[in-house]
Each structure stands twice: as structure tokens, then as C-alpha cells.
């Protein structure tokens, strides 16, 4: 098993920002150092589709100039960050890992990008992903699969596999991904890093290329809770450009005082305990014991509807995708194939531009929305969504958080599930329910399996309890390996 872990020393975002702000190191030195790391490992990992070295150097230059002029630097001063390639960065090619967008340079920034630049972060590149975020392995990328840094023969998870791998291999301390059914948490679990899916609406989706709009959410990858808080504080908040962005009267607290585990009510979802590999079951048991020792009250809870979430998700998400991806028709941006008339041009462009997984989902969604099938599929799935929300809300009246594994297994081999989409979809079985409910959830690395592959645990909480998730994740991290 060939690994690319520990090739480079880990430098946290908070320590880089602090050093750059005090002038102990220049943003340019940090940038060059990380660009060199990316250069030396990206051919093995394929974590980046585009390395934005020009943009990174010009940002670093500006930051160093600001410092020389005596200006106070932002909270992410000089911190290199990777951006999933479905979040638009002005002037940097954004492909969504699809041939249909190859060569497209967006004329605007996503809101999160404006906020990162404002905070003096340095965008070093666009990370690899499953095409249009549809997948659980990053194998469905038009630019080839990303490799798991723990074992180059294995997948990093997906769809935000490039971001997870880049953070795991210390190419960058922090990264952004997007999570529609587990696309941040599942790769975070496979690559042994922290990954948060925030409460729906907590982070603006403006400039995130839409997959399933009622489920999509941008979120952070990091290795320390401090870095998670730092990045979440920068990217979250109301945005008038996103009509689904939450407008808080009081901003949710991301940095609560030290959470007392004593008295914390932790629910273990019975339905998620079936079919776990023994290594993962042991990790979960260890975490439960640590929480118990610290005074948490553990309770087994049942959410029967989680069994139906996979089916509901694979109707709702494709239905929304079939509508969202109608815009890729070769007229306004991206690739175009020739055709005798406009419709032939559109058919040729879409047929050649989209990969198989994207085609599968577009067709599934089109079918679920079509006359005669709408009630049986799409409407039923939406009703299940109501059931899921109600059952979660009932459970949260008796427990504060829920704890489960993030995935039923550790990272699988490249190619292992490619021919069986249904088998691939099953790797999201524990992450999907929180997307349907709109709740936050985080992956925390906790132990490893017999082959040394990371195991991830998932903590779930009610809407807007993102800060609480970070605190409890911090406790678990401090207990890992003890």
C-alpha cells in the first residue's frame, strides 16, 4: 500500500495566519511553499484540476504589500486554500470536472470566494471532484480519479475527493467542498480529516454550480477545530444574492465556551448499526465509551424513516439535477458541438459533454418528474422528506446530538464499484438523511481499520447547532487514540 501521508509537515491555517499577520513570514513564502508541495504530489494524487498559481502569487503579493503599508491583515492572512471545482472563481477555469465546461472561465466570484479574498486567504487551485458533484468516489471526473493519500489504489471518497485528499496530504491546511448527500463528510471520512456540512442556508450558495438546490451546501475541510471555526466564520452569513440564505437576527455562535460533555444527551441511531464492518463498530463503541466517561448520557434512538432516505434522495436529487443541468446546452458558456439546427447542436453538446453518471441522473430525474410517474416517485420522495424531518425533530426533543459512523465501510478500491451505481449509492446511506432535513453534520476522524485506513464518525445536530458540532468534534479529537 503506497501512501503519501506525512510527506509534508502540517501547518495549520491559524498558525499561518498568525505568523503572516505578525510579519514573521511573508504570504509569498507560504504560497511558494504550498505551490511546490502541490507540484510535487499532484501527479500522484490528482487532487487538483487547476493550480491557480498566477492568482495565488498576485494575492500573496497584495497581502504582503498591505502588511508593509501597516494595514491589519484579515483572519486568513496568507492561508492557502483549495476550492472545489464547482465553486466559481473569476478568471480561473471552472469545470465541475466535466467536459461540457472545459475551458470556461467564469466572469464572477462566488460569494464565498469574495469573502475568502476579503479575509486575505490565497486560492491555490481548483480541486477534483465527481462530475457536477454526482458520485461518491471522485472516479466520475472527466480529468481522472483522485487517489486516496493513505493508499494510492483507493478512492478518496466523493464528490469532494480532491479537497479531502489535498487537506489529508498537507497540500493545503483548509479547503472548500460542497455536500448534497454526503459529498463533504464521506470523503473527509475516507481521508481522515474534518469535514462539515453546515446547516442549509448558513453559507451562501451564490456561485456554487447547482446540482440539487434544496440539498446543496458549501462547507469546510480542515484538520483542526480551530481552523474549522476560522473558515466557517469567514464564509458563513447572509447573502442577498442567495434567496435561500438564512437571515439571522443573531448570528449562530460558532465558538461556544468549552462544551461540557457532562449531561450531554447523545443518541445512537439504531438503524445505522446494521451491517457495519467490525473495525467501524469498534471505533463507534470507543467513542461512546469516551463520551460516557466524560459524563454524557447515551441513549439508543430509532429513526425508522432513515431506511427510506436513500430511495427518496435518489429521486429528489436527480429530479432537481435534471432541471438545473438543462442550462448546459452549448448556447451561453462552455463547450459546443456542431449541429444543423439549434436542437441538434444542443443534443450533440450534451451527449458529448456529459459523462455517464451525470446522464444517468439526468434521465432518472426526468423520469421521476414525467407525466404518470410524478406522484409515485417525486411526490412520494417529498413526502418521505416530511416524515424524516418530523422523526428527527421528535428524536431531538430527547437527545442533543446523534452519533453514528459516517460511512458503512472505509475507502474502497479504485474501480470496485464503478459498474454498479446502486452499490456506489449505498456509501452515502448514513450521510443523506441530514441533507434531506437541512441539518448540520460533521465527520470526525476516529481510529483506523486493520489496513491503516481512516475511520470517520458522524455527529449530527438540529439546525443551527453547527457550533455545538465543532465543540463535540473537538472533544472526540482530543480522545482519539487515548
Amino acid at each position, binding site marked *: 500500500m503506497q501512501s503519501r501521508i506525512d510527506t509534508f509537515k502540517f501547518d495549520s491555517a491559524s498558525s499561518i495566519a498568525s505568523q503572516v499577520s505578525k510579519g514573521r513570514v511573508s504570504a509569498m513564502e507560504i504560497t511558494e511553499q504550498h505551490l511546490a508541495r502541490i507540484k510535487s504530489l499532484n501527479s500522484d494524487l490528482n487532487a487538483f484540476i487547476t493550480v491557480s498559481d498566477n492568482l495565488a502569487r498576485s494575492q500573496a503579493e497584495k497581502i504582503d504589500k498591505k502588511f508593509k503599508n501597516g494595514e491589519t491583515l484579515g483572519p486568513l492572512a496568507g492561508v492557502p486554500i483549495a476550492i472545489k471545482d464547482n465553486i466559481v472563481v473569476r478568471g480561473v477555469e471552472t469545470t465541475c470536472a466535466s467536459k461540457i465546461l472545459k475551458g470556461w472561465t467564469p*466572469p464572477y466570484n462566488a460569494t464565498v470566494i469574495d469573502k475568502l479574498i476579503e479575509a486575505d486567504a490565497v486560492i491555490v487551485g481548483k480541486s477534483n471532484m465527481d462530475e457536477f458533484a454526482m458520485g461518491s468516489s471522485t472516479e466520475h471526473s472527466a480529468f481522472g480519479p483522485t487517489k486516496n493519500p493513505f493508499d494510492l489504489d483507493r478512492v478518496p471518497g466523493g464528490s469532494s475527493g480532491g479537497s479531502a485528499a489535498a487537506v489529508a496530504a498537507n497540500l493545503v491546511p483548509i479547503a472548500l467542498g460542497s455536500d448534497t448527500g454526503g459529498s463533504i463528510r464521506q470523503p473527509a471520512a475516507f481521508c481522515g480529516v474534518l469535514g462539515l456540512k453546515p446547516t442549509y442556508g448558513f453559507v451562501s450558495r451564490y456561485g456554487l454550480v447547482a446540482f440539487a438546490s434544496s440539498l446543496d451546501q458549501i462547507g469546510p475541510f480542515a484538520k483542526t477545530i480551530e481552523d474549522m471555526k476560522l473558515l466557517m466564520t469567514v464564509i458563513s452569513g447572509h447573502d442577498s444574492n442567495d434567496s*435561500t440564505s438564512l437571515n439571522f437576527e443573531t448570528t449562530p455562535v460558532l465558538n461556544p465556551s468549552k462544551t461540557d460533555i457532562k449531561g450531554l444527551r447523545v443518541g445512537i441511531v439504531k438503524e445505522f448499526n446494521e451491517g457495519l464492518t467490525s473495525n467501524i463498530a469498534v471505533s463507534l463503541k470507543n467513542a461512546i465509551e469516551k463520551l460516557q466517561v466524560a459524563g454524557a448520557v447515551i441513549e439508543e434512538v430509532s429513526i425508522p424513516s432513515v431506511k427510506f432516505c436513500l430511495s427518496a434522495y435518489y429521486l429528489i436529487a436527480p429530479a432537481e439535477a435534471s432541471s438545473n443541468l438543462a442550462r448546459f446546452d452549448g448556447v451561453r458558456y462552455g463547450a459546443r458541438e456542431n449541429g444543423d439546427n439549434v436542437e441538434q447542436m444542443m443534443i450533440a453538446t450534451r451527449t458529448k459533454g456529459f459523462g455517464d453518471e451525470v446522464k444517468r441522473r439526468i434521465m432518472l430525474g426526468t423520469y421521476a418528474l414525467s407525466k404518470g410517474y410524478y406522484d409515485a416517485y417525486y411526490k412520494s420522495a417529498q413526502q418521505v422528506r416530511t416524515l424524516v424531518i418530523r422523526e428527527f425533530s421528535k428524536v431531538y426533543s430527547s437527545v442533543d446530538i446523534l452519533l453514528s459512523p459516517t460511512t458503512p465501510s472505509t475507502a474502497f478500491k479504485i474501480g470496485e464499484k464503478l459498474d454498479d451505481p446502486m452499490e456506489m449509492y449505498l456509501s452515502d446511506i448514513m450521510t443523506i438523511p441530514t441533507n434531506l432535513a437541512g441539518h448540520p453534520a460533521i465527520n470526525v476522524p476516529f481510529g483506523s481499520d486493520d489496513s491503516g485506513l481512516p475511520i470517520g464518525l458522524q455527529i449530527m445536530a438540529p439546525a443551527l447547532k453547527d457550533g455545538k458540532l465543532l465543540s463535540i468534534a473537538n472533544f472526540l479529537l482530543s480522545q482519539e487514540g487515548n
Partner: protein
Amino acid sequence: MDNNEEQIISKQDVSYVASLARLDLNDDELESFTVQLSAVLVHAKDLSSIDLSDLPPTSHPLALKNVFRLDTARESISREEVLSVAPQRTETGFLVPPILGED
């Protein structure tokens, strides 16, 4: 494929859905997509095992209301910037092949 398994979706259905989605499938693709889409739809049949009759559908996790802004002009991306990344353009618009099939 198990012949006893119920054929939920036919090749004709898949071909029709592909045409609605403006996708062109060759015979091999039609074959494999039919099997794969059937597998997902067979899985989705579990939804019919629960009583959903009293449940309203949820289209969105937030109780969304329309969000309006004042109808005042504001700055946006310039036309030139938008057109500069188009596959084909004229001076002021997107250029496409004939819509009615004639020049």
C-alpha cells in the same frame, strides 16, 4: 440480469426519457442505462411500503417565502464579459445555429 426481476423501465422508456433530456444514446448505452436505472427504481419501490397519505410533500428544508428586493437598477456583470466566454457570439448577443432549420 435476473429474468424474474420485474422490468420497471423498458428500453423504449429510457429512449423517450433521453430524448426529453436532449441526450442521444447508442444501443450499448441504452442497454446498460436500462439495467442501471431499473435497479435504482426497484430500490425506490420501498417507498410504496409506507403509508404517506397524511404527509404533505416537502420541497425545501426551509419554510421559504418569496424574497424580493427593491426594483432599482444596480451594477451587474458587463455584457462584454459574459459574451467573451460564450461559444459563439455576435457583437451584442449569443450566436446559435438556425432555430427553424433554415437559413
